[in-house]
């Protein structure tokens, strides 16, 4: 089968160029719209307190002397039992995004990102189906089963044409998944022009649990701390040091 080269010039390349440009536009628009993450002091203090508890349980704690470790353990276990470090001491249960301003911000950001991705996709898809339907555009280099015919040859309902000849809408989908490397070339790593990452995120978001209940987390951290013990690395350090130089005690 022989295709008119005009198809190549006026459909293939324009679709690809338009998609690249729209991607670049999306990237810059996302950069303009994204706001700096606002963190407040109480939130920072909360996370850092938890980190400090974890540090005390880690191997690094063996380097400080036992009384220092004990003092810190006492202090943190008593403090974690109170609401000293918790950001919102009055909330019960997991935080509701509606009430917690930080959660609200996160939801707005997610919604903005979704819009950024959804709108260009729908616009381009409708543009392609409106202007570029009714003919086949490209021949895929790999064979496919006949079930794909309905999907990939939407405008052209023939009975016995190869499934490898596909319409322009499938060229659009090929580009959608394939232009990622070109975006990395033009925009550098970590660009916002790629549609596939957003789609993956959309699937992840409904599964994200609501903000955890901080008092429960502190409670479990306190229990871990209670169970932690301390094997000072300073015990036997002299023998180890002498052994390092090939000597023994008394030698």
């Amino acid at each position, binding site marked *: 089968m022989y295709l008119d080269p005009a198809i190549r010039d006026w459909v293939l390349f324009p679709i690809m160029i338009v998609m690249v440009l729209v991607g670049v536009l999306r990237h810059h628009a996302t950069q303009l719209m994204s706001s700096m993450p606002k963190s*407040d002091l109480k939130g*920072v*203090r909360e996370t*850092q307190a938890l980190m*400090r508890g974890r540090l005390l349980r880690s191997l690094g704690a063996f380097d400080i002397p036992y009384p220092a470790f004990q003092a810190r353990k006492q202090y943190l276990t008593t403090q974690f039992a109170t609401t000293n470090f918790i950001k919102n001491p009055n909330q019960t249960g997991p935080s509701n995004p509606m009430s917690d301003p930080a959660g609200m911000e996160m939801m707005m950001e997610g919604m903005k990102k979704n819009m950024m991705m959804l709108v260009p996709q729908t616009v381009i898809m409708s543009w392609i189906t409106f202007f570029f339907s009714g003919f086949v555009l490209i021949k895929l280099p790999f064979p496919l089963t006949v079930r794909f015919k309905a999907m990939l040859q939407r405008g052209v309902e023939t009975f016995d044409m190869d499934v490898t000849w596909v319409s322009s809408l499938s060229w659009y989908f090929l580009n959608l998944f394939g232009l990622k490397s070109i975006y990395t070339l033009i925009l550098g790593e970590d660009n916002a022009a790629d549609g596939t990452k957003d789609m993956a995120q959309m699937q992840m978001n409904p599964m994200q649990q609501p903000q955890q209940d901080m008092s429960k987390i502190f409670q479990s951290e306190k229990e871990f701390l209670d169970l932690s013990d301390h094997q000072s690395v300073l015990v036997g350090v002299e023998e180890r*040091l002498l052994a390092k130089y090939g000597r023994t005690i*008394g030698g």
Partner: protein
Amino acid sequence: MVFNARTDLAELRALRGGLDSNAAPFYDPAHVLDSALRIVKSNSGLIDEVEKWALYEQIVVAAYDTGDVTTGNSYLDQILAKFPPKDSSRSSRLLGLQFESTGQFDKAVEVYEAALAKDESNIGLHKRIITALRAQGRKQEAIEGLVRYLDVFMSDIEGWLELSSLYLGELMYQQAAFCLEEVILLRPSNHLYHLRYADILFSFGQVELALKHYCRALELCTDNVRAFYGIRTSILALASKNDKGRGTQVDVETRDSLKKLAEEQLSSLYAKAGKDAATINTILKAWIQERA
């Protein structure tokens, strides 16, 4: 010294990663100022627009550090023209630096607090307020401010080290030791913090614990001369306090072996030294024999 733009640029980039990171080179303001100015003026294609402003920031800070106020002011004016302080906490910090360099600390603190009102978890601004207090000699207020800062940002090593040096200036050894313990918790494998902790412990009389930490520092960093000196000095101090060695954690035999190790290693390390080896070795031998 040969001017190699690429290595200098790599150094400047590493410095921007923060002085606490592992790859950061030693911060020498004069060298930073010199190389950054040359890169910026050379107009080569090595830096793009974004990096240019980061380099300008480094130039301003290095210029104020070396006392070259005119260069600092000229580059700061360019930065402020492009990034007005009311929108950017980074430029507010530099503007406050300018006030500090001329001694107008009150104005500087005003600028910092105004910027903090908009972005309250900005670490750089908090730290500048505390250094302004310290530069004015208001040590107690600096200590209080730093304690409040560390209550929130508990994992900031620079902050804990600064607080420990403030406490040492007031001869509050126990508190300084507490700060160093926090630092060791955060970076347990860094031998330098063990050394400093041991020095502080020795200073307020906990000689045995100091000895153990000197040993630990040596374990982490072989042939560390300061640790050897520390070991020998603490053993001699222990000997003069309690001859029998009973009731202590480190018995006499261990102490003797450690002392021998320290002396022999010190002598051999210094013997390997280059030119002034003769003078140093004589001094060392005399020191070793003096309190043997």
